[in-house]
């Protein structure tokens, strides 16, 4: 198997380049969610440019749509579009590479960006799969700040009610949102208890540990009778000390010096991952 940890740091470098070239981007959340997406797209999901129109493909909706740069990097590496094209045109006038998911692009199933939409849509996709007797799986990735959206809990209720065990939600629990610590903005601890109370199978993991992520997704795939939520504990800005756990990196463009340091850090982490 490819060294996904090492790959993730290359993809993070793509993200940093997109943000610098595009003059903006939600870089902190891109960094925290990258391992979740890398594990999903390179180890779990049955999705590729070859089967992107097959009804039997696995589906993912990026509910935390502001982390679209991470999704672009992963989709580009999967061959959906050239990464250089994204880096050079991201956020530019007339570009399809918008700052939130745009389903006119190959590989992106649904538009998102306004928070709290993905879980409902995925519940519908999972229901369709059940109706047609398909074996495919449906994934959504939500932010922890996003969990304050009431629509998520409407969907959580319905997904349990309809026994959508082909649905797996992932929470990128990086504990920071634009105004600061989630616990100060709107307390989000006790996620396990909350989702369990809604009837979901819950699995907490270290969202940067590929062994834990792999096991969690496999467990979710084998769980029957209820949907699964994986609470991925992550670090916002993961990959460089310049950004890690600093709320100001929710949406920010690195300075030239910061850029150099971030790239050095990502390269070091990649090397370390290759020698783990």
């Amino acid at each position: 198997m490819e060294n996904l940890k090492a790959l993730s740091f290359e993809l993070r470098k793509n993200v940093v380049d997109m943000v610098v070239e595009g003059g903006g981007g939600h870089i902190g959340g891109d960094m925290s969610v990258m391992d979740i997406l890398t594990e999903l797209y390179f180890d779990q999901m049955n999705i590729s440019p070859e089967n992107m129109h097959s009804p039997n493909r696995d589906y993912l909706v990026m509910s935390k749509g502001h982390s679209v740069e991470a999704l672009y990097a992963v989709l580009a590496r999967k061959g959906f579009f050239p990464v250089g094209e994204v880096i050079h045109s991201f956020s530019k006038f007339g570009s399809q590479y918008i700052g939130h998911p745009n389903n006119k692009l190959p590989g992106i199933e649904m538009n998102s960006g306004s928070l709290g939409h993905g879980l409902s849509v995925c519940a519908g996709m999972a229901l369709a799969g059940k109706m047609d007797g398909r074996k495919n799986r449906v994934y959504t990735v939500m932010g922890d700040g996003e969990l304050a959206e009431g629509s998520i809990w409407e969907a959580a209720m319905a997904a349990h009610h309809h026994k959508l065990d082909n649905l797996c939600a992932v929470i990128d629990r990086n504990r920071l949102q634009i105004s600061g610590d989630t616990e100060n903005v709107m307390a989000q601890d006790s996620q396990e208890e909350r989702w369990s109370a809604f009837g979901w199978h819950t699995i907490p993991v270290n969202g940067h540990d590929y062994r834990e992520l792999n096991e969690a997704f496999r467990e979710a795939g084998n769980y029957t009778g209820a949907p699964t939520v994986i609470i991925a504990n992550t670090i916002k800005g993961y990959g460089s000390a310049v950004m890690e756990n600093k709320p100001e990196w929710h949406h920010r463009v690195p300075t030239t010096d910061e850029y150099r340091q971030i790239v050095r850090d990502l390269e070091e982490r990649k090397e370390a991952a290759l020698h783990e």
Partner: protein
Amino acid sequence: MNKIPNRQAICDVLIEKAKTDKDIVVLCSDSRGSSSMTPFAQEFPEQFVEVGIAEQNLVGIAAGLAKCGKKPFAASPASFLSTRSYEQVKVDCAYSNTNVKLIGVSGGVSYGALGMSHHSAQDIAAMSSVPNMRVYLPSDRFQTAKLIKALLEDDKPAYIRVGRNPVEDIYSEEFCPFELNKANLLAKGEDAAVIACGEMVRPAVDAAKMLEAEGIYITVLDMYCLKPLDREAVLEAAARTKLLVTMEEHSPFGGLGAMVSQLIGSRAPRKVINMALPDAPVITGTSGEVFEHYGLNANGLVIVIKENL
């Protein structure tokens, strides 16, 4: 007097079509009764999805179903469907271009006495200002059935508003000309033109007869397609008459009157009178009483036309 409300006509078509099309799915938000969808739920339980009282989720789930090849019809009171789930309509249906048909039932002031929370006098404005969303207000049960059959043939989102109560037939089993996105010309006179939609078409037809007895001849257009508006039909009516009157069960802002006035103002300046609900809390009563109070009936229309000729 017809006893079949337009919402029931929708259910009848869906039951008929679902017999051979397993992809048709009806979704309700504890609204199967108010949407007249109980027979569908009973006959096709595998193609019926209950989401509980959760309109945002109703529309989001419908979008997900559509993305995976289903033909979802999300039916809920127009008031809640058009505003509570507005963002899901915008992002998950229109912007994502999913084949979701939104059925707003008990629209306008159908729930007259239940008050403003239950009135939908903003739905045309809200829905039509979303790119890639079509808006339809059919006038009777025959046209409603034709519309639903036509919409089953395409794969794009649409919003359809129908009222709660049966309305008198405009058309018949034998005579119901229908072309998607083309208004129906119901009367052709040179003195004035009335452009109406939904439940206001019937009073327009009645007013035409009343005026005819007095030697006044008016054009009546059944503009069931609010978006895309049949601009040609409006301009054609404007070319033949000096006075245009729009009539709708909607706020005076952003609805049929606003659309027609916008078009006429730029293309064929004429006097346009907009008959609509007031920009104020609507008086309590049955929808018939409410219409009468605001002059949104045949008598009211006759008065407006005679005053302005």
